[in-house]
């Protein structure tokens, strides 16, 4: 019985690779592509082409009468002045673009670091020590996914009001009320952590939960201290999940403007997403908005491709 079980997966994989040949059924060449066609066409029209429109806008012009953006579709006629101007604003002049960019990187970095440290602790505890409460903890870890991001941030916005409960609580300890919502970086960073940390915890939990307990015991039996076991067994085994988690939380953070708008609404904490959001739909700002979207794409393309490559590898390994 045992040997049959051991060979079963292998047989299944081989079969799956060539189901059609074994069963002797002939599929027309267009058969499987026709299944994928609607989705492919949809994405080509509504996902790939819009990128081209963004390019044509960023390298296009604005009509003089209504200041509406005029896309230029022919790459030979593209003008790069607006784009160059936009890029230039990042390193010259009053730093109106540079500060948000630097801020974005600082906030995203601190927020994802906090996400990682707290998330790792929570995932580690849940995977290894939760015991009977495991089901409950998992349920509580998953629920934020089903609660609107907006509502979660809105909830904090209410708690952080000058007369809100947070100030009431710190007042008990004799601390004076704090204007949390008046453009404080710490509020924005913690808001980002609050919003995105669930996306960090789940992949970490998945990976830590899969680690074979015997490996940890082997490390201990071979004389490693708990710290050494953690650093040399657990941590390397969860490396993939750490990187995946970081990418998953940083990607949306780079495009985030709403956390900022709800928890600070001050130019002192504005991020890259705010630059885009402020220029979208404004008269004459079409090429600027499109250029900023392109630049955001440049920033996130590397982590995005990294994530896609990793998921494909994981799928192939499975």
């Amino acid at each position, binding site marked *: 019985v045992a040997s049959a079980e051991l060979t079963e997966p292998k047989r299944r994989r081989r*079969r*799956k690779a060539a189901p059609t040949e*074994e069963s002797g*059924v002939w599929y027309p060449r267009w058969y*499987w592509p026709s*299944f*994928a*066609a*609607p*989705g492919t066409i949809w*994405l080509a029209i*509504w*996902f790939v*082409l*819009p990128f081209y*429109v963004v390019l044509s806008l960023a390298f296009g012009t604005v009509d003089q009468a209504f200041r509406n*953006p005029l*896309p230029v579709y022919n790459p030979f006629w593209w003008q790069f002045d607006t784009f160059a101007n936009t890029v230039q604003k990042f390193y010259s002049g009053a730093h109106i673009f540079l500060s948000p960019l630097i801020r974005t990187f600082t906030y995203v970095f601190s927020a994802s670091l906090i996400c990682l440290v*707290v998330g790792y*602790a*929570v995932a580690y*505890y*849940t995977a290894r020590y939760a015991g009977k409460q495991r*089901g409950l*903890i*998992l*349920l*509580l870890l*998953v629920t*934020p996914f*089903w*609660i609107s*991001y*907006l*509502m*979660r941030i*809105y*909830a904090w916005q209410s*708690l952080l*009001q000058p007369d809100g409960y947070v100030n009431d609580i710190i007042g008990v300890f004799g601390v004076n009320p704090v204007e949390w919502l008046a453009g404080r970086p710490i509020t924005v960073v913690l808001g980002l952590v*609050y919003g995105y*940390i*669930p996306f960090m915890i789940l992949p970490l*939990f998945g990976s830590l939960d899969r680690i074979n307990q015997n490996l940890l015991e082997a490390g*201990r039996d071979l004389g490693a*201290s708990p710290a050494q076991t953690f650093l040399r067994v657990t941590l390397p085994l969860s490396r993939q999940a750490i990187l995946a988690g970081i990418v998953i939380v940083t990607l*949306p953070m*780079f*495009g985030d403007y709403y956390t900022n708008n709800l928890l600070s*609404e001050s130019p002192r904490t504005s991020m890259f997403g705010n630059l*885009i*959001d402020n220029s979208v*739909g404004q008269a004459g700002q*079409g090429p600027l*908005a*499109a250029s900023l*979207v392109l630049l*955001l794409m440049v920033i*996130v393309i590397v982590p995005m491709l990294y994530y*896609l490559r990793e998921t494909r590898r994981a799928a192939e390994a499975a």
Partner: protein
Amino acid sequence: MTDVAVTRVSTTVPSRSLFGWRRNPWRKPRVLQAITWGYLFWSTVPVIIAIIFSFNAGRSRSTWQGFSLRWWYQDPFDSLLHDPELSRAMLQTFKLSFLTVLIAVPIGTLFAIGIDRWHGRPARSANFVMLLSFVVPEIILGVSLFYVFISVLKGAIDLGTNAQIIGLVTFQISYPVIIVRARLLTIGAEYEEAALDLGATPNQAIRRVLLPLLGPAILASIALVFADSVDDFVTLRYLSGPASSEPLSVKIYSAARGSPSPAVNAAATVMLVSTLLVVGIGLLLYRRFAREQGEAADAASLAQL
């Protein structure tokens, strides 16, 4: 006897608890436990407070002034049920989510089946674009589509319900693809082969064998896409036309930046309850389906899909 007693004392003496873990790795890690429950408290309680405040008697959303149903339906003008804008937004939210499910789930399911069997370069490219749509920051997609609708398709498809559905479907279509593909991998090809060996045509094998087997995954996709569409606001905000086409999420965002009344809390609660309800029902049916097919499934597996 004495031996046991000695070791037990040494691990429970409080002054040594910092190093206790070193001696006894099977001891409960109190620090981690505190962080975990602290996190869960921090994660859950604000939302619960926000729900409670939808029953506030006063106008404040931060100071409790007694219980009332004023913001739900009693107030003839400003309550969720009687504020024409909020109730219209609620309908718009459900309309958009329903139609998005109706379009995105079938297209995504077919795409997953097709891409699973169709090998070659075009298939790989299509799959790559699909995954790209899964990870791209939403603001990029939203803004791109916004400019498509106001410049290229001006007059043909204007901002509003149609544009919103297109945006939502584009952003959501990858969920059914990923979920159904994961399920296809676990099913394997045997059942379909058996059907073919027994004389079914390829279409029959898909309709009568594969699709029922994919039931749980399709169900999970429906729940996920619906819940996510209800919560979406980045794409929907850019693609909203007149105020009448703004869904609940966009209304909440605008209100939260002004001076929101607890009616906004009530609106957010409706969103929360409807998504939790849909996901809960989806989860129950999923477990039932999966159990019938002899497989275990829990909350975590649905979330990780």
